[in-house]
């Protein structure tokens, strides 16, 4: 149960963000397709503003989206203040006119979702589709949701995934020490 301590007004103004539950993700990459379709007008996952990383050996798929970042390294690192943060929505955004294409933000992004489009020489940066993100709408499993932190059901996900990885590592070790291949 979530205890709500603030007033209604405060809850209303809590910023929404893209919240990922990787245990639900099937790795279908529909989110990447939907993103590129909306932003680029073609189907081109390499220019999507989010990135699903698939681990075929583990059978695990992890969507990487923009945020939530308490500290935003892309903003910190930008030398010309082209990358900034909206004080109300808390969303980081790129002011393309100011951008000098130094690519620092792409390197700094902890989620690896800021990219350089080498064909048109510009930085690609998620803008949460102005508050109506296409990826969250397209995701068939609910693995990406657009919600406030309080609304999100992410509490158990880390336990689940770490427990799972631990189990795999354990059996891999047993296999190495004597098990057959």
């Amino acid at each position, binding site marked *: 149960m979530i205890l709500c301590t603030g007033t209604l007004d405060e809850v209303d103004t809590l910023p929404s963000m893209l919240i990922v539950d990787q245990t639900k993700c099937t790795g279908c990459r529909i989110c990447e397709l939907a993103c590129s379709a909306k932003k680029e007008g073609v189907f*081109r996952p390499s220019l999507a503003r989010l990135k699903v990383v698939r681990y075929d050996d583990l059978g695990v*798929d992890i969507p990487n989206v923009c945020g939530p970042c308490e500290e935003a390294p892309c903003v910190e690192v930008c030398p010309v203040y082209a990358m900034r943060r909206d004080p109300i929505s808390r969303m980081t955004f790129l002011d393309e006119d100011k951008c000098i294409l130094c690519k620092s933000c792409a390197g700094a992004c902890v989620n690896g979702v800021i990219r350089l489009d080498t064909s048109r020489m510009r930085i690609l940066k998620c803008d949460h589709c102005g508050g109506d993100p296409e990826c969250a709408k397209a995701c068939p499993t609910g693995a990406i949701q657009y919600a406030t932190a309080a609304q999100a059901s992410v509490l158990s996900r880390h336990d689940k995934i770490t427990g799972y990885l631990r189990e795999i590592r354990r059996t891999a070790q047993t296999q190495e020490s004597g098990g057959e291949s």
Partner: protein
Amino acid sequence: MKPGGYAGRILRADLNRRDFRVEPVPSEWVAEYIGGDGFAARILYDEVPAKADPLGEKNRLILATGPVTGTLWPMSGRTVFISKSPLTGIWGESHVGGFIGPELKYAGYDVLVIEGRAEKPVYVSICDQDLEIINASDLWGLKTDEVSAAIRSRHNDPDVQVAAIGPAGERCVRFASVIVNNARAAGRTGMGAVLGSKNVKAIAVRGHQGIAVNDHERFVELANDAHRRVRQNPQAQQMHKYGTWVLTAVKQTIGELPTYNHRTGVFSGWEKLSGDYIRPRYTIGDRACFGCSLGCKKVNYIREGPYAGTLEEGPEYEGLMAFGSLLGISDFPTALRANQICNRLGVDMISAGSCIAFATEAFQNGLIDSKMTGGIDLEWGNSEQALRLLDMIGNRTGFGDLLAEGSREASRRIGRGSEQFAIHVKGLEVSGQDGRTHRSIGLSHATGARGADHLRSLVTVDQLGYQEVAAKRWGCDKLPEIVDPYTEKYKAAAVVETENTYCIRDALIVCWYSVSWPPIFWMEDFAQMLPVLTGVSRFGERKNLIEIAERQVTLKRLFNAREGISRKDDTLPKRFTVDPMPEGPGKGQKVNLEPMLNDYYRLRGWDEITGLPTEETVRRLTLEWTHSHSASS
């Protein structure tokens, strides 16, 4: 103007000269074939001479996509490997999900054709315009998952999509598979052996370009709506939960679960092979292929017992059947482990299980002995034995070397009447159905272009008794016979109509499960979507799509005819036509193939006596160009 959805280019990798050529897709091909299987059939017929050795230099290996591949339309991640089959000597093809098809499109190519033969092991590397044939000596001998990992790390990019062969492909096991994403198999008809014979260990693809469609906004609207239909479809929801394992219980109920080398259609141990049993005990994750909102792939993990620690995606129903009921084994961990071995060694699970079942029955009947098997006393229900034999097949060691030739050839070499236990059509081992309790599949197995095949024309409407769908699709006048699985009547009509739709499916290319039981999409949906996608307005009419499908079926038939196939080869094992079903709901049933064949040929415009396309049909389908490649060449 280039039609929407296509990259518009064919890439050719010439192994002899170690270089590449890029050609435009001939513009008339789009209207005549759409793509996928259609393009590949056009190329294969044209370029592989009659009677060419499937494992020889003249054979081609084609990797084809269609205009839907890589777009937002549901289940657009499928792709197809096509070649002359080393298992059957005729038309070979195997569709696979995963991600390599879309990646090829993003790299800028609709089709990849691999020609010739490399002197030393290589892999074909495609990254947009950067094309390379790279030495793969260090990869030779590796299992498929190791190949993918090695190539991804060499290219320093986890998004490189790799199609790899394992040791089985290298050793030209006749039913060697090609594996993508570690656990998706282009399993059937030995496409892995073709790559192995060419010394190609893998195909690695990375693409960064986009696919533009004709009317983007409208297409996205249609695609989103189509995804909604997938998500709301109750059968699709079941499939998301249990994958194809839903079928075990269905098959058992109607008495069509192949058991003990297809001797019977009911299996006492079926429950442990059913979705209800497996999911809560073993499934730890759900996965999907590219662009799929259904997500039928299950990641499974065995916690205890002899196969503890096995972590693998799959198997499908067919794998459960092949290493379950077919061998009398009632144990999911065995099937999962078998699936893992098949994936890593690169072996088709259906043919492998079927070859072991053949050997077991031959052994039980005293036609082979333990001297021949290297000391293995073959028996039903022995997991350890089945896995050992599988390993021997994949590595071609001992007795496995004989089984690696496929059940037709193995039985021919063994002789002594063992042929009766080799359950195949045209050399392809029969998949997990039985014509005795499902007549239309009997016809499908007999007429399928690649042999005993459930994917070319499996009618589910009769099997599951969907009266309304049947009435809508084939007319009320054909009820009730057309939905009666025990009568031959009207079955050819159902098979032809279904085969036509599946041809379009395989030209687009979309996944089987979007048109399977009961279909989420059918011809009319494709007719609505295709003009929006491509801008080709003639695709908007059902009759044009049917003609394209007929062309595809007939062209594949002409390919097989050139190899000597005719009506005499459109048969079923005696097990289905002479031996009645011994027990279960379909007890006493058997297939009477001839009347169904007559109907089928008539509907196809093929000669009833020879089973070959008539001259008039060839002309109607504008296939006269095939005349210049006669059998004598």
